Structures are given as structure tokens and as C-alpha cells.
């Protein structure tokens, strides 16, 4: 009935105009209208309900992604990356909150105004580049990194929609270039790209998240500074291409300093020449020359092949196939084992190595880790270059540091083992806790180590390492001068000179390595550029400065007749030794 009425009403315009059922139709229509109104009302109620839910959602529960302004810096999340400090807590790397400026071209009303305003605020921005960025169809584009708080404030004051500031962190290196190669650097998104920053990337993030404080390195800024300065001075004086140096704790393997020169600005590594980024200390592999001889001697002594009083024929050069092995300062006589080191005799070292034999020599060098990358918390670790075929000739040349290229770090870490009683050290850039247990791996006997200390002392006291001697301290060490192999040939005047010194040599605590890349002779050095003139003095200067800092007691020498240390009572002529 109601349906009929409705239909009649609906069609009334076109069909029947006469309605005698009006009296019934009206209440029926009213009834329907009430029902329909109820439906409409419920729909409205649902809509308003949705509004309430959404309002709560926006404001309280699921706040939308924060398009932040610089206004409320209180929400700044401190350090997504932990600080790096030296062993005494001096800040080496930290974070500064800054802002990055983005433009969303679609939201800029007045492009010319925006370009002009940005040009006023940032004279370093190229207006044409800014204009083309704003005119581009991109959704958003980065205009500039690292805005100061004042610049961020100015941007906000401009009130130009479409310019957005995004909070970010800027990695800063308060010590500048001093630690560039050791600490490394990050990219603009604060991801580690080199050095400790890269090797400890995950650890630095973890520490920041866990609020477990800064990462403490083994480095000591005082030692680092002394080493860097001494290296730089010599490098400048001898017009060397580069220099490298390290100071290591011979017991723990901790590096107190790690320098590679020339250095670079870790804040802007891209603006430094590419070669300055190269880490000569841990990445560069070199044939290091005579600094290898102590390993030959140690192997022979440790295997019982040679004794300290044995002598070797160095009267004339050795000819092996088409090579000639000779000495630079030929004595042309038989030399005792100590004399071989003091006079740095290639012939003597080669003859010792032949007695050791290729197989045992390789095994010994392998135990020292001379064929593998040396472990260290940095991304720059060089892999040694060893000959594939180990001939007799190889055995001879390796005995005096040619034919096998290793990093200076390999050399230094193994000198530590030679003098510390014969225990291999694992080099580290991280500060070790006092009393930390380390794996004890013996590479030579304690007795051999004691002899090696004595021999190294003799080199500084009597031999090529004289310029490393420091008044008041007992220093031992060995020089190494190697011609650089360039294009498959050794070049006589392109040399790698290096020196490893240990102090105090009677009870070794620290080892210092210094290296010069292609130093030239000067008037002061009588035209010499060998290690004794360009590397040993640097080590001496460094030891002189850092020994007091590191609490190494000086020996008071009131009088020349004072008894020398017992083990070093050595007449240098090879007649006798009472150690």
C-alpha cells in the first residue's frame, strides 16, 4: 500500500495527476520520510564519529611524519654516532647538530624572490644552479648542508613555503688533520668511510644507541703530535714525497700514534688531493730493506743455526744467477753476527739466510704474519706482496728486506715481538683495559729476544742508528734503506728509508717506527739521504720528546765512568760479549 502510494506520488507528474488517495498517501509518505531520515541521520552520525577518530589519530596516536622547523630544537636526538676520544679522553671526533636545507620546487610561489633571498643568505650558492633546481620538476632537492643555527633561523624568517630544514648531524674533528689517517672520516650521512670511523662504524652506532659513552682509542694526542711534528720537519727538510710513523706499546700492541704524511682535512677529504688520503703506515706496502735483517738473525739464533760469536764471509759480493749481492759500506772481511747488523751487511745476512734455508725462513716469516694483512681497526690495511716462487735468490734478498713488500705496521708489530721476550703482538688502535688478557703466542724464545735487544742497542750505540741515540735513554733499533722499485727496476735515488727504534732497550716499553718516502740529501747530512740520516734522527727526536711524557725514567749519568748496562758491555770489535 505504502509502496503503491509512493510509486503513484513519484509518477504523478507524468501519469495520473488526480490523486484521491491523498489522505492515505500523506501519512504513508511521512512514514517513509521518517525511515529515510533515520538512515540519513545514522550516516551523519557515522561521519562525525569518523571525524573524532581521525582527529585523535592525527593529534595523539599516530602523529604524522614531522616536517620539522628549526623552532623546536628540543626534540633533537643527540648523537646517532658515538664520539671518539684518545686514551686520555681528548676528543678526536664528535657530532654537531646542524640543518640541511631542502627545496620543494612545487611549493615555491615566487621563484625569483626565493633565488634572490637564498643568494643574499648564502653567497656561496651559485644563483644559476639554485634557479635551475627551483625550476626543475623535482619533488625536492638538497640545496646546502651544514647550516649554522643562525642560518637556519634566517631561513625560517624568510617564511618561503617550499624551503625545508632537516635536522642532521655533522661529524667534526677537533684535532683537524692530526688524526686524519688514524680516525678516518665519514660521508655526509655520517657513515664511516675510512680509518676507525669505517672499521668501527657499527660499534660507534651501537654505543650511541646504548649510551655507552665515547670510543676510546689507544692513541695519545701528545705522542701523535710529537711524531707528526718530527716527521713533518724532516720531510720538509729532505723534500720527501711523504712520511709515516707509528709508536707502539711493545707489550700490548696498542698504537700510541699513527701518522701518515701528507695529511688531509677529514672534514673535507674530497677537497684534498687524492694521494694525501693514502695511508703509508698501514696501507702502503714497501720493500723496507735492512730493517728486515734482525728477523734473519733472530731466525738463525732461535733455530740454533748460528751463535752470537759466529762469523760470516763478507769479503766479496755474492753472485746468484744474474744478480749480484753486495754491501753498501763494504768491510771486505769476515763479519760476526753483531757486525752484520752494525754494518748492515747484505752479504752476511744473505749467507745466514742460506744456512736457515728457504723453507724455515718462510715458516718463520709466516709465523710473524708477514704474508697476511696485519689486523688493525682501520679500513686501510695493506696485503704484503710476496714472490710466488721462493728461490734461493729470494731467500737471500728477503734476508735483507728486498723481494718482500710489507706495510710499516708489519715491521713495527714484529719488532715489538723481537724485543718483548718473543711474544707476538696484535696491533690495535683501541685502548686496552689494564690487565686485559691477550693470547700469548711465542714466535722466538725469551733468550733470543734478549740477544736481539742487545744487538739492536749495538746498532744505535755503534752502527748506522747512531743518530737515534737520545741522551739519558737507552735506545735500540735498526735502519733500513731500500731503493724503490719503479716500473720493475730499482731506482738508486728513489729510496724508502726507515728506522725502528725501541726504548728503553734494556726493558722495552715502546717501539717507534719512522719512514721517509724519497728523501733527498741536504748539506746538513753531507748529501746523504739514507735511513741513518733521514729516519733514525726522527725517531731520536720523537723518543726524546715522548719518553718523559710516557713516564720512562731517564738514566742519570753523572760521570762517563759510570758502569754501562750489563748486557751492553760490548766492545764492538766482535771479540767478546758478556751479557
Amino acid at each position, binding site marked *: 500500500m505504502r509502496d503503491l502510494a*509512493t*510509486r503513484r*506520488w*513519484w509518477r*504523478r*507528474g*507524468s501519469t495520473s*495527476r488526480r*490523486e484521491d488517495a*491523498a489522505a492515505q*498517501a*500523506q501519512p504513508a*509518505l*511521512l512514514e*517513509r*520520510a*521518517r525511515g*529515510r*531520515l*533515520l538512515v*540519513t*541521520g545514522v550516516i*551523519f*552520525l557515522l*561521519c*562525525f564519529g*569518523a*571525524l*573524532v577518530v*581521525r*582527529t*585523535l589519530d*592525527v*593529534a*595523539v596516536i599516530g*602523529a*604524522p611524519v*614531522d*616536517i620539522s622547523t628549526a*623552532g623546536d630544537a628540543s626534540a633533537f636526538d643527540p648523537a646517532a654516532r658515538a664520539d671518539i676520544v684518545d686514551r686520555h679522553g681528548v676528543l678526536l671526533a664528535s657530532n654537531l647538530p646542524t640543518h640541511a636545507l631542502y627545496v620543494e620546487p*612545487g*611549493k615555491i610561489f615566487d621563484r625569483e624572490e626565493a633565488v634572490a633571498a637564498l643568494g643574499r643568505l648564502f653567497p656561496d650558492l651559485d644563483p644559476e644552479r639554485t634557479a635551475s633546481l627551483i625550476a626543475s620538476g623535482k*619533488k625536492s632537492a638538497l640545496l646546502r648542508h651544514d647550516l649554522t643555527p643562525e642560518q637556519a633561523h634566517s631561513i625560517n624568517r624568510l*617564511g618561503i*613555503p*617550499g624551503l625545508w630544514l632537516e635536522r642532521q648531524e655533522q661529524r667534526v674533528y677537533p684535532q683537524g688533520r692530526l688524526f686524519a689517517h688514524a680516525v678516518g672520516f665519514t660521508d655526509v650521512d655520517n657513515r664511516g668511510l675510512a680509518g676507525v670511523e669505517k672499521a668501527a662504524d657499527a660499534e660507534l652506532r651501537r654505543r650511541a644507541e646504548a649510551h655507552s659513552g665515547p670510543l676510546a682509542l689507544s692513541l695519545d694526542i701528545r705522542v701523535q703530535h710529537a711524531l707528526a711534528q718530527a716527521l713533518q720537519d724532516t720531510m720538509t727538510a729532505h723534500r720527501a714525497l711523504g712520511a709515516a710513523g707509528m709508536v707502539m706499546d711493545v707489550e700490548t700492541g696498542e698504537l700510541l700514534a699513527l701518522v701518515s704524511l701528507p695529511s688531509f682535512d677529514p672534514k673535507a677529504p674530497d677537497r684534498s688531493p687524492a694521494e694525501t688520503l693514502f695511508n703509508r703506515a698501514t696501507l702502503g706496502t714497501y720493500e723496507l730493506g735492512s730493517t728486515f735483517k734482525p728477523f734473519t738473525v733472530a731466525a738463525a739464533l732461535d733455530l740454533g743455526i748460528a751463535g752470537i760469536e759466529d762469523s760470516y764471509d763478507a769479503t766479496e759480493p755474492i753472485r746468484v744467477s744474474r744478480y749480484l749481492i753486495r754491501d753498501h759500506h763494504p768491510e771486505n772481511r769476515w763479519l760476526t753476527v753483531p757486525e752484520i747488523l752494525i754494518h748492515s751487511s747484505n752479504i752476511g745476512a744473505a749467507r745466514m739466510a742460506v744456512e736457515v734455508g728457504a723453507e724455515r725462513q718462510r715458516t718463520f716469516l709466516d709465523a710473524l704474519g708477514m704474508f697476511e694483512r696485519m689486523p688493525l681497526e682501520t679500513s686501510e690495511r695493506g696485503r704484503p706482496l710476496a714472490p710466488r716462487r721462493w728461490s734461493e735468490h729470494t731467500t737471500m734478498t728477503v734476508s735483507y728486506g728486498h723481494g718482500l713488500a710489507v706495510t710499516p705496521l708489519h715491521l713495527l708489530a714484529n719488532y715489538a715481538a723481537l724485543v718483548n721476550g718473543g711474544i707476538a703482538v696484535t696491533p690495535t688502535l683501541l685502548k686496552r683495559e689494564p690487565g686485559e688478557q691477550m693470547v700469548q703466542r711465542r714466535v722466538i724464545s725469551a733468550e733470543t729476544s734478549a740477544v736481539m735487544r742487545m744487538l739492536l742497542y749495538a746498532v744505535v750505540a755503534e752502527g748506522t742508528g747512531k743518530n737515534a741515540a737520545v741522551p739519558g735513554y737507552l735506545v735500540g733499533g735498526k735502519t733500513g734503506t731500500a731503493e724503490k722499485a719503479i716500473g720493475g727496476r730499482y731506482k738508486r735515488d728513489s729510496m724508502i728509508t726507515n728506522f725502528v727504534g725501541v726504548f728503553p732497550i734494556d726493558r722495552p716499553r715502546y717501539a717507534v717506527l719512522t719512514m721517509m718516502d724519497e728523501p733527498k740529501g741536504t748539506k746538513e747530512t753531507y748529501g746523504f739521504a739514507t735511513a741513518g740520516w733521514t729516519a733514525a734522527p726522527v725517531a731520536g727526536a720523537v723518543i726524546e720528546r715522548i719518553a718523559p711524557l710516557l713516564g720512562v725514567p731517564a738514566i742519570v749519568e753523572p760521570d762517563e765512568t759510570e758502569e754501562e748496562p750489563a748486557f751492553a758491555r760490548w766492545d764492538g770489535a766482535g771479540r767478546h760479549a758478556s751479557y
Partner: protein
Amino acid sequence: MDQVTPFSRTDTSVVGRWWWTVDRWMLTAVLLLMLLGAALALASSPAAAERIGLDPFHFARQQLLFLPVALVVMIAVSLLSRTGVQRIGTTGTVLGIALLALTLMVGVELNGAQRWLSLGGFHLQPSEFVKPCLAVFLAAVLTRPRDDKLPYGMLLASLPVVVAALLLVLQPDIGMAVTVAAVWFVQMFVVGMPIVLAVLGGVATAGGLVFAYHNLTHVKARIDQFIDPTTGDTYQVDTSLRAFEAGGLFGRGPGEGVVKHVLPDAHTDFIFAVAAEEFGVIACIVIIGLFGFIVVRGFARAMRGRDLFAVVAVSGLLAQFGFQALINMGVAIRLLPAKGMTLPFLSYGGSSAMATAIGLGMVLALTRERWSDEGYEL
């Protein structure tokens, strides 16, 4: 109750009878809304006025002038009888359509649309006044007595709606045109449109939207950016959302808002965001609640009545009121694509306040109780 009420039950004066028959609950809700409007005008005015170089309280002063006038107008209209409401509706529709046509010829252009008539000192927006009148006129025609001889009731009823909608599209004021069409649809539905047609209408609307999306670039842009906010200018909506976030539950406090300063339409289309920032979400829910209450309460009261005309007219008037509130607030919280629409009584604007007052006045008039054989009823 008796002590507080100003009028005695036996008072038979116009005002006395009005007091006892009018929906006092709805009246209270509307008054609260107006008070909120005054408070928000004080909050939003400085932000909006400073940007265009006016005295900071320019908009607040204007709005505080409009609101009392609107209140008086609303009460005056609510005193009218059923016939009076019909007369205003019919006259208003005819006059309004004429003014709409006039606006197209001599109107003032603002922001790329010609919607206002300049009447010496202030701008009148005829479209605001057409809306309530059209709803009443439509109800009157749709529910006219059986014995009238007018043919083609449907077409006749719909003709003014079509004309008004076309004039609105020409301004262009698509939002207003859509509102008028939606109100027409609701009224047709309530009056008895067959369900099949209602469904077809829904389908046609959807089809129309798809057509508009593909053929009108700015509609496409609006919808695209709603679906994917990165495609266009979402500055106002983004800023609005930040205001909600900043306000939290209890708001920053009156006058403490900062987001409003960078929201160009803070005093009109985005007044809800200002409310959120300064007074918090709880105030927002109160506002939503007031709008919802007025609509649902009006519907419920109309349903109890026996007058078909009143039912249809009230459904149209309140649907229009509810639509505007839903769309305005929905845009501010990104529940709907951006569409400029005023929030009744809260947004700044004299025409809007006056037209809303007239519309709600008519609702109050039509939902007054009447004496019948069975006692007071609607």
C-alpha cells in the same frame, strides 16, 4: 526550572509561546557554537590580519559584530510560522538566483573567483543565502498538497537547483555547487526517491567524480595530492596537521599557537586547526560533538513531527549544515581532499554566519511544538 525560565507557561505572547515550543537543547548547542566562534576569532584574527597588513584584531572585531547579529536573525527567523518559512524560502530562492546571475555580471573577483557582490563597504556572497532558501523551496514543492494542478513536480522542483548549481559552477564555486546538489539528493531521498534511483544516483555521482578527475585538471590535482601528498601543494594541509600535533590533548593555550601564523587560511578554511593547536583535541571533539548534536537532534525532532514539509525541509537544511562541517573539518585533518568550505559560525565571514543563522532559524521554526488534538506536538 520555573524559577529560572523567563516566561510563564501561560504567557501567550509571541516570545512566550516561542520559548515554550522551541527546541531549547538545540538553541543551547548553537549558542555554545557561537561562543566558540568568538573565542576562535580572537585566536585566528591576528595571524590572518597581520599577514595582509590589517589591524591584528580586524577579523575578530568583524566576527564579534557578525555573531550577535546572526543570533538575533536566527531567533527572529525561528519565530516564523511554517508558512512564513515557506515564504522566505520561495522569495529567497528567486531573489538569490537573480543575485547569483548578477554576481556573474558585476561581482567582485577575489582569488580567481567571482563570488561576491560589493554593497558599499562589505561584500555579500549570495550563494550562502541561496542554499538554505533552496532547501526550503524544494521541500515546499516536493510536498505540496495533492490537489494542486502543477505538472512535472520533480522537474519543477529540481529546476531551480539545476539553475543555481550551474550559476555556482560558472563563478566558479564547485564546492558550493556540490553542496547544493548533495542537499537536493538528500531531500529527494527522504521524500521517497525509489531505492533503485538512490543507488543509481550514487553510481552517477561516482561516475561524475571519475569524469571530473579525468577532465578537470584542478580536480585531478586535488585528488592526486590527497592520495599521494607529495604530488602538489599540500602546504596548508601539512601545516594544519602540524597544528594538531602541536596542540596535543590540551592545546598550547589561548593565543599561544605558532602554526596558525604560517597557515594562510587560518581564519576561514583552517579554523579547526587553530582550535586544535590552541585548545587541543578535547576542544576539537567538543566542536565535532556540537555539530553532530545539532544535526542528529534536529533529525530526531523532525522525525517526531507529522508535517512532511517540515521533515523534508529540516533534512535539507541540516544536511547542508552537516556537510559543510564535515567537509571543512575533514579537510583540516586530511580525511578528505582539500576543498575550501567554511565551518558554520566558526569560520570568519559575515555572509556565512548570516546564512547559517537563517538556515538554523528555519530549522528551529519548523521543529517548534504545535498544539494539536493530542496536545503539544511538532
